[in-house]
């Protein structure tokens, strides 16, 4: 049975073996619905996750990397040559941005329903994450952090098209938050 509302099957123009394979793949991705219709039980290996799960996993990894980058920078700002007041203001700004990213990461992870027996997606643990970040363990400069924020924001907005509505809204909101970190950090640098 092919579900009438199945997006992958309905949108496909493929014929022959390729189309049959696609229909089977999409059918196995709907075990609960099939069981309800026909009493068929799907056994064996879990189906490949749909594309939006891959997008979500990538977003989780990106967010974990941002957290790692801020942890590395907040550990290194003591040598930035700032006066005590300026250092305090910048440290507060970095801590605020880090807090935002930790909240982003938690919300993204909460949207991921991993099949039983699979490890949760986030490969990075915030506690020891600094060494795994880009830049060979060297803390990014503030300018690099701002660039990373803008790039992360753009990436999230570019991935909206095929996401479920609720996840698209979360991506859009996080993208907006990350964009605002750019002027926020710039202002903290100036003062």
């Amino acid at each position: 049975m092919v579900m009438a509302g199945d997006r992958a099957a309905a949108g496909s123009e493929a014929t022959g073996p390729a189309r049959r394979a696609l229909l089977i793949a999409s059918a196995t991705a709907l075990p609960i619905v099939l069981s309800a219709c026909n009493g068929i039980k799907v056994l064996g290996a879990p189906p490949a996750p749909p594309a939006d799960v891959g997008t979500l996993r990538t977003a989780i990894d990106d967010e974990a990397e941002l957290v790692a980058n801020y942890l590395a920078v907040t550990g290194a700002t003591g040598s930035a040559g700032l006066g005590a007041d300026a250092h305090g203001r910048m440290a507060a700004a970095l801590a605020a941005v880090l807090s935002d990213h930790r909240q982003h990461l938690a919300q993204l992870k909460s949207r991921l329903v991993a099949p039983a027996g699979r490890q949760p997606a986030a490969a990075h643990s915030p506690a020891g994450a600094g060494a795994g970040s880009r830049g060979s363990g060297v803390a990014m400069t503030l300018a690099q952090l701002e660039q990373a924020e803008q790039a992360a924001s753009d990436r999230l907005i570019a991935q909206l098209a095929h996401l479920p509505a609720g996840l698209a809204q979360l991506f859009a909101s996080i993208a907006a938050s990350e964009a605002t970190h750019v002027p926020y950090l710039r202002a903290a640098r100036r003062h």
Partner: protein
Amino acid sequence: MTNATATVIAALQIALAAEQAAGYGYGVVGARLPQGSAEQALATADWMAHVRARDQLSQLITDRGANPVPAAVAYRMPGPVRTPAEARALAVTLEDRVAGAYLELVALPESGLRSLGATQVRAAALRAEAWRGSAQAFPGMPPASLRG
């Protein structure tokens, strides 16, 4: 009109209503900021952004065969707006509401409107940041929609 079209129109009208309210609200914001100040110039620039967005949304609604709901003659302010600090707070409230309204567009399946919604959530969040002086973790998202 199909259900899908009605859903699109409803979301566009929500965004339009938020833009109309923001356009009115920025008039109040500007009036309470020091004459000729940089902040007043910022309020003017933000007001113009909302006017442009309002016109774009009206056009999108018209293109889909519906009539844009006209703006109200006047709007009740969320609180007193007598001082520059209260004017800044109003600007923040206006932008937060605009961001929330555009998230309705992001929930639509049409990729062009979804993208427009996301771009405008980001633009509103950036304007809010300028008035607030700080960033928010989830612009436009009602706290109840967040998990945990």
